[in-house]
């Protein structure tokens, strides 16, 4: 799909190595684990905790032109749903090719129904979704 996932925390790369190699739950992790101990990149994305030096649970989707296309930030104790992240990622990829369409809330993958907004659709979204 032409996408790279990078995880980031304020831990050093040494801690990442130790965690990845020690924790069996991570044995399938193949993506780069980024280290931001000074919080520079974390602050850019608004997830750095100034009072504790820890990052909030933020996910950010950046397109191949370097533009920020999606973001989700949760507090420390609320895990993100990866299926939803993948859904939003796929929708972003699809919409980058189909710039005159919209993905409704039930859209999950390519092939699902989309909307092509137009004057004819005003007040008739129900028909557009159900025909």
């Amino acid at each position, binding site marked *: *799909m*032409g*996408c*790279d*996932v*990078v*995880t*980031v*925390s*304020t*831990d050093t*790369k040494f*801690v*990442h*190595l*130790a*965690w*990845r190699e020690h*924790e069996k739950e991570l044995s399938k*992790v*193949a*993506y*780069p*684990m*980024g*280290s*931001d101990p000074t919080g*520079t990149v*974390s*602050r*850019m*994305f*608004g*997830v750095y*905790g100034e009072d504790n030096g*820890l*990052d*909030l*649970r*933020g*996910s*950010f*989707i*950046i397109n*191949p*032109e*370097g*533009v*920020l*296309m*999606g*973001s989700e930030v949760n507090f*420390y*104790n*609320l*895990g993100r749903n990866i299926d939803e*992240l993948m859904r939003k*990622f796929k929708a*972003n*990829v699809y919409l980058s090719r189909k710039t005159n369409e919209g993905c409704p809330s039930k859209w999950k993958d390519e092939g699902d129904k989309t909307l092509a907004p137009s004057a004819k659709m005003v007040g008739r979204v129900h028909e557009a979704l159900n025909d």
Partner: protein
Amino acid sequence: MSNCDCGCECGEPLKLGQKVPEFTLETYEPTKGDFGSFSLADQIAKKRWTILFFYPADFTFV
């Protein structure tokens, strides 16, 4: 925090639709078993999407 002149929005976090300033991060790469680095500039040069996934700390839960 508006003491930088790099042209980026240093005091304000990024907004959707904004071009992300180029950045690099030191990394641990499990596929190589070695340290490396990630660069947004490289991603743009290779025309690849990027998902950045921030989390609080290694060796914790959730």
